[in-house]
């Protein structure tokens, strides 16, 4: 077993991070969204707007007085009874559990849903939402695949204005430059905390296991940016107090899980198999903008800045057009930046973006001499022994025969 601390591990002694991890876990596992209801209670008239993966610009929503709520389906917490009747067997799992949650009333606390352009399943889920819940607000967010500021940038800014206007008609506050600037600043601060956590993870993965980083990152799904930042900082401070030591694990980057999320046990399984996950795309939406959004006082138009940030700083991912970049170059940079020994492709079954991208990324890694392995999962996968064996064999092979360093 790793020397790392984890929630509920007996006999290790008091973990300084136990309290914050417990809160994070409660927030993540609460499918009734009590934290969202509490926020609405303390913000009368405030709208809670759910959004599917990967990314919507959360500052836009906070700027108009809304709480952005990231929805990742029901994971392994929901028995699918009705959701399966809406999808054929060869469609991934997240839309089924999301429909299930909605039909069970678990999403009733939300005042609207946003469906970003990630793939045809999520795209069509947006259309299904309109048919199933015609009285509820829902909208597609068509992220640009043209990155020219005069073309894609202008279209995207118009798209954001449209969403703000539609929500305004439903009771949200008007979008002003000041409110948007403040929201972007809060978001920049949240991501600064997140990037600090990521850096700590890369330096000392034994101190910040990926399974814990996952919880504290995902807890932000139901929190405003400022509160999430506080939680992240609290966790980091606690993690730094831990008395832990490193183990002889390999360092891996896990990619492909940017939408339908792996069960937490799958992440733990990889760790128990000897892999320190030093980078991943599990909560890619939070990290989609790779840097601060520039809203210094001399920036006239914060909405344009928000749009530009996506064009210029948007993370490379399967749902974003590669343009002139060499496919796989970003992944190689990430792997080398994280001093990773290898990459694990962990795609949800039937995930078109991840699975169509994978051969190109594998070819790039092979060319760069970076070992990799791949597996598929569903959000409600319940058996992990095979994955443990595969990851264990990968970890051993990398240790015996080579690394990315």
């Amino acid at each position, binding site marked *: 077993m790793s020397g790392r601390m984890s929630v509920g591990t007996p006999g290790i002694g008091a973990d300084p991070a136990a309290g914050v991890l417990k809160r994070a876990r409660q927030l993540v596992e609460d499918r009734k969204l009590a934290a969202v209801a509490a926020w609405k209670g303390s913000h009368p008239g405030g709208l809670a707007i759910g959004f599917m993966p990967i990314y919507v610009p959360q500052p836009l929503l906070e700027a108009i007085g809304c709480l952005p709520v990231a929805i990742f389906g029901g994971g392994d917490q929901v028995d699918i009874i009705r959701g399966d*009747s*809406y*999808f*054929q067997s*060869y*469609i991934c799992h997240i*839309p089924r559990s999301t429909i299930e949650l909605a039909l069970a009333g678990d999403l009733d606390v939300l005042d609207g849903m946003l*469906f970003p*352009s*990630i*793939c*045809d*399943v999520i*795209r*069509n*889920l*947006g*259309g*299904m939402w*309109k*048919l*199933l819940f015609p009285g509820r607000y829902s*909208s*597609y967010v*068509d992220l*640009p*695949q*043209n990155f*020219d500021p*005069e*073309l*894609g940038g*202008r*279209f995207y800014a*118009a*798209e954001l204005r*449209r969403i703000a206007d539609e929500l305004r008609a439903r009771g949200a506050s008007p979008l002003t430059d000041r409110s948007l600037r403040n929201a972007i600043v809060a978001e920049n601060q949240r991501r600064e905390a997140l990037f600090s956590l990521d850096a700590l993870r890369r330096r000392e993965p034994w101190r910040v296991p990926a399974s814990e980083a996952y919880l504290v990152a995902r807890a932000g799904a139901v929190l405003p940016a400022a509160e999430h930042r506080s939680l992240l900082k609290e966790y980091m401070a606690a993690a730094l107090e831990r008395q832990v030591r490193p183990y002889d694990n390999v360092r891996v980057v896990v990619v492909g899980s940017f939408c339908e999320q792996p069960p937490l046990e799958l992440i733990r399984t990889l760790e128990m198999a000897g892999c320190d996950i030093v980078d991943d795309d599990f909560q890619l939406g939070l990290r989609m903008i790779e840097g601060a959004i520039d809203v210094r006082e001399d920036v006239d138009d914060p909405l344009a800045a928000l749009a530009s940030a996506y064009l210029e700083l948007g993370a490379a991912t*399967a*749902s974003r*057009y*590669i*343009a002139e970049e060499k*496919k796989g170059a970003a992944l190689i940079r990430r792997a080398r930046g994280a001093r990773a020994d290898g990459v694990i492709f962990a*795609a949800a*079954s*039937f*995930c*078109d*973006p991840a*699975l*169509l*991208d*994978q*051969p*190109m990324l*594998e*070819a790039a890694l092979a060319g760069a001499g970076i070992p990799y392995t791949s597996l*598929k999962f569903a959000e409600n996968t319940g058996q992990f022994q095979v994955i443990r064996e595969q990851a264990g064999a990968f970890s051993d092979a990398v240790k015996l025969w080579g690394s990315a360093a």
Partner: protein
Amino acid sequence: MSAPDTRRPANDTSEAPPARSGLATGATPPASAPAKDASQLRQKQMLADYFAALAAARENGKKVVYTFVPGNLVELIDALDMLPVLPEINALQSAMRKRSAGYIAEAEKAGHSEDVCSYVKCDIGMLKSGNIGPTGLKLPEPDLLLLSYTGCFTFMKWFELLRQEYRCPVVMLHVPYQAGGAVTAEMRRYVGDQLRDKVVPALEGVAGRKLDESALRHRLAQSRRAEDDLVAVWDAARHRPSPIDGYFGGVYYIGPIFSAFRGTDGAVEYYRELRREVEERMARGEGPMTPDGTPAQERYRLVVEGPPNWTHFNDFWRMFSREGAVMVSSTYTRVGGLYDAGFRHDPDRPLASLAEYCLGCYTNLNLPARVDLLARDIAKYEADGFLINSVKSCNSFSAGQLLILRELEKRTGVPGGFIESDLVDPRYFGRANIENRVQSYLQMLEARLRPGASAA
């Protein structure tokens, strides 16, 4: 590179057994191959000439642009004297010639997932097997990949994959999704500006010349003529009996206009001839020709949602034609343009109408709009029922089809059938299962339409 394995699976026969249901119309296959209509012969020659031109492209100094059927800009490509290649059409042609299984196996051996689109895998496998096209001639490599990103996420990945294989430039045309059920001014502007600032310059760069706008206008005017005749063909299905099969026959009718020929004199002549043949059949009170070489005996009128299966196309067709089921309309035949909803290419507004064309293709419509369109067609063509053929490969079509089924039944009161297969992967065509479902559905329709009549 190895040749593809073109052996047919043991359970795959090119001639299906006769229909076993008591609803058989008694049609028997002819002793010899059925005579082809003049339009069919014309299309065959057009295709032969086209693939010959592609094979000789390098020799003749012709540049080649790969693009997709939805949102295809063949008038632009042709106006710059370049040749288009549409990989989806290569894939379906490979399937009809029983080559797709081998190509898909090659792609999966190279690491492509069994979960993803079989069109892509078929194309990748064909590439890795020598890129021999449907007529046995080698296809030329692209000088440019025109990524018309409309209605299908997979298109983006497909051309990223091909860029890696061919090491050629790509130009992206991002066509926004009609999520709100309508085309907005912002969408038109975005697509039009990309055409002006990105696509046309990229095409000109490859062609080595500037676009002659009068040449483009001429082709758009030709497109318009062909579109008028095609819509007349679709509308003919309102007649009883329908002189066309708007799905199995329809995929042949859309060949020229959705592929390399829209905007050409050849397409104008083809659709004029097709329309004349259809109108003559209508005047004679005849149904469309079936794969057994006899006119259909219309007993059921159906609207179809979803692409056909290509690997067992004629067998699939016979499951319906031998029971007298005629498809009066379909959505797949609108993937390359909703002309019967009123769209026409407009020579007076060339780039604007090309932008509108790209925005208006069927798979770029939201689900409620697709339901509306299907409900409209069920009423317009007085359909007895509708069928959804859900294909494993295509999430753009398939995700949400079970809800479409429920919505349509609720809205129209007309019963729907639901079957599952695939585009070009024969492993996902379960003949017995599909035939069973089709038979059950048609028996239910029979009982509904003619209660009290006993099955033969």
